[in-house]
């Protein structure tokens, strides 16, 4: 009889077109939706290139030109030429000859150069008075200095993540007004204004990780630039090596020994898929609810027939429950296969155990419906509403809508995560992903089995009552 009832129930369920459609369509629709919503967030956060607009003032370019000019000034030659000039002049004067030779550098120019004793002095120097003839390089190299030659810009362009992706990308050809609009719309992360070697400013429109990284890059550069300037100022002979000092990076030590977080799949958004499986499993409770209610005399006419028959009621109901379990298992396996093999979702962990966990998850939902079905003579629509409350509320608390919820509940009321069907299921998947097949996973499985067992037992106990006060 057990087998017959089970088969008859399976036939009933499979032949119900509405039930079959929604039971299969619902997980596929939601799974696909989740795939579109979450599958790319994690990978897009990794090594995300940060778009910025860089505005370099004339002051900054000029400062660098001065720096380069002083760094490439052949002071030895200048001194020698001046010395020679004065020697020649003295000789000519001594010999009473006329001396027409032009002074290689005017006294004024020389004074101005000698006045430059520090970096700040250098910044104020007017290149109009510079003795370009004594440049070690071609003058055009100084005159043609542009934004891209600035050390800060070079540093920005060279910054990469560990995987080689550029950290920062400049958006070029944008006016200031356009940049402000792009910033406001979130198309760029910030506007960097370079006013001098050390005066660099950042304008942002948020405080996300991108903005923080930009801030840190600028902070690091400013510190390095500050150190370089201090070095230059320590000894005025360093002025000649200003450019070299600026380009040098000081000894920088990495103090961090990095350790990776655990998890076969580190993407935290995979938790939404765990919750999806939990959701589908819990939704199976409405199937077991409806099936069991059909056998209750106070809920349906068929229930009167069943109740009056000599069949052992609990055997009858368990047979029906088994039919629901079989069908729900098929649905869950189908959904899981779709997610893993069609959508390519990596659940993390051994695939055999993922399927096992999924099947056991179905048990939680089915026994939940079985238990609720035996709660007194409340009408079925109210029982379904109660199941929905468990489904929505439980799902919310296990992180279905807001990922942080589960961990907050774990901190404030961990007992709730042990009795919440959704949390019990998602924890098993999580344990498999992060800890692998081990004590933590087995403990999670145990909670699933205990939860299912307790609900089944309660349902069986409540099922024993056979007479009603009213029908």
């Amino acid at each position, binding site marked *: 009889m057990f087998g017959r009832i089970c088969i008859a129930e399976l036939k009933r369920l499979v032949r119900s077109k509405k*039930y079959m459609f929604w039971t299969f369509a619902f997980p596929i629709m939601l799974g696909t939706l989740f795939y579109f919503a979450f599958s790319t967030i994690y990978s897009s956060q990794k090594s995300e290139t940060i778009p910025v607009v860089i505005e370099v003032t004339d002051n900054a370019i000029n400062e660098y030109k001065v720096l380069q000019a002083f760094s490439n000034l052949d002071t030895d030659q200048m001194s020698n030429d001046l010395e020679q000039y004065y020697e020649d002049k003295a000789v000519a004067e001594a010999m009473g000859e006329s001396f027409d030779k032009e002074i290689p550098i005017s006294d004024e120019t020389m004074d101005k150069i000698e006045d430059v004793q520090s970096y700040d002095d250098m910044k104020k120097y007017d290149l109009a008075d510079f003795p370009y003839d004594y440049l070690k390089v071609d003058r055009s190299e100084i005159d043609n200095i542009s934004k891209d030659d600035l050390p800060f810009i070079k540093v920005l362009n060279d910054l990469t993540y560990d995987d080689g992706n550029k950290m920062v990308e400049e958006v070029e050809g944008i006016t200031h007004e356009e940049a402000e609009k792009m*910033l406001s719309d979130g198309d760029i992360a910030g506007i960097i204004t370079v006013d001098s070697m050390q005066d660099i400013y950042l304008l942002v429109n948020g405080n996300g990780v991108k903005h923080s990284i930009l801030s840190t890059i600028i*902070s690091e550069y400013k*510190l390095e630039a500050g150190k370089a300037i201090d070095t230059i100022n320590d000894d005025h002979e360093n002025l000649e090596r200003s450019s070299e000092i600026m380009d040098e990076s000081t000894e920088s030590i990495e103090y961090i020994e990095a350790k990776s977080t*655990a998890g076969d799949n580190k993407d935290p958004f995979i938790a939404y898929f765990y919750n999806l499986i939990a959701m589908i499993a819990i939704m199976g409770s409405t199937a077991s609810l409806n099936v069991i209610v059909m056998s209750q005399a106070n809920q349906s006419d068929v229930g009167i027939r069943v109740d009056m028959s000599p069949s052992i009621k609990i055997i009858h109901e368990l047979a029906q429950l088994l039919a629901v379990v079989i069908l729900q298992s098929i649905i869950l396996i189908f959904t899981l296969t779709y997610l893993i093999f069609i959508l390519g979702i990596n659940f993390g962990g051994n695939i055999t155990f993922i399927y096992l966990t999924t099947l056991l998850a179905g048990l939680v939902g089915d026994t939940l419906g079985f238990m609720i079905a035996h709660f007194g003579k409340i009408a079925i629509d109210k029982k379904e509403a109660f199941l929905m409350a468990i489904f929505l509320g439980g799902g*919310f608390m296990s992180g279905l809508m807001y990922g942080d919820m589960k961990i907050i509940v774990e901190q404030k009321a961990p007992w709730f995560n042990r009795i919440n069907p959704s949390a019990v299921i998602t924890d098993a998947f999580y344990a498999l992903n992060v800890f692998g097949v081990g004590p933590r996973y087995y403990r999670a499985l145990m909670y699933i089995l205990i939860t299912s067992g307790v609900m089944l037992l309660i349902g069986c106990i409540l099922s024993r009552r056979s007479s009603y006060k009213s029908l």
Partner: protein
Amino acid sequence: MHVYKAFFKVMTKYKLSIIIYTTIVIFMLFSLINAYSASEEEDVAEKKYTLLIVDNDNSELSKELVKFLGTKHYLEDGSYTDEQIKDMLYYQYISEYIVIPEGFGEKYEKASENSEASSLLQATYDEALPKGIFINMQIDQYLNAVKDYMNSGYTLEEASAKCTDAMDSSKYVSMQKKETVATQRVYTSFQFLPFGILTIIFSGVLPVIMCFNDAERKNRTIISSYKMTKRNFELILGSASLALVVTSLLVGLASASQNSEYIFTTSWWLSVTNSFVYTLSVTMLLSMITSLPLGINTEGSANTSTFITCIIGLSFSFLGGTFVDITILGDKVAKIGQFTPNYWYSVASRKIWYEGGNLSDVAESFGMQLLFGLVCLSIGLCFTRFFGEKKA
């Protein structure tokens, strides 16, 4: 208004279901608000993360480092097991777990670029995400700068103070719109409303509409002298009335749990208007759903209406940025999400609370929500006209 009155009489039969859904939504709303218990008014450009630091060294340097990190981030208190730490890291409750080993202070002085004494701190974090990299950059930057300052003759305390000052981003970073201070709490509470509104309205109205659209009952109306258009209009009015009550309740609750400084401000009024516009849009969507042959207009199809409520409620909420902020969702999702009223609600909400938007800024979002609703209403009316009457 005979049908309108009957609508509410029938609805009282389902009051328990409505109460259950409403209770759950309110519970979720308050749980969410309480999860953001501190008002996080961050107008500086540096994001603060939560770190768990275990200082096994207890030297002056380690204390200064912890103090420095405390100015930049939130430090988690308490002792946790390895398992708990893994959980916290996985769910990104903490962004990094740092262990300062014993002897850190001594080894720090001897450390150089190529020495074995470097890599003194153990930091566990998700290497793939940039926030770990950012935090490590800060720590390295601080420790290197402190060393340089100390080499220049400063004491540790002085060097630490100078570093902290030099790394104070407020001196060189500014926000585009400083006057807008958005708190996570008020934004989140209003952000959640669409899910609550949609779920309660659907769960409350669908069974009532099912009841009225039962074939035999509907036929009674068709053969009577009561106009079907009048009947349908009154049913929609009934739905809208319920929707109005539900939205008012949720808006009231969301507002009551905030600081009074946010209430009755321009932003608040705009948010309230946003909520009601969304409600109107959802009501029109509902009228379309009850007109389509989805198998919900038959007795015993409670399951179907449950599935529809869940699918629409969850999918609109996920695609539209109700649960996961639209700035995090990718472009592809945003493109699909634009077809939901939730998306435009989220856009408006963001503009209101984060960008100090006024009516002209959010008018487009309001318009898109209403347009969605009108399209749904039109589809529903077409279906009713061309298919519904014939079937009856």
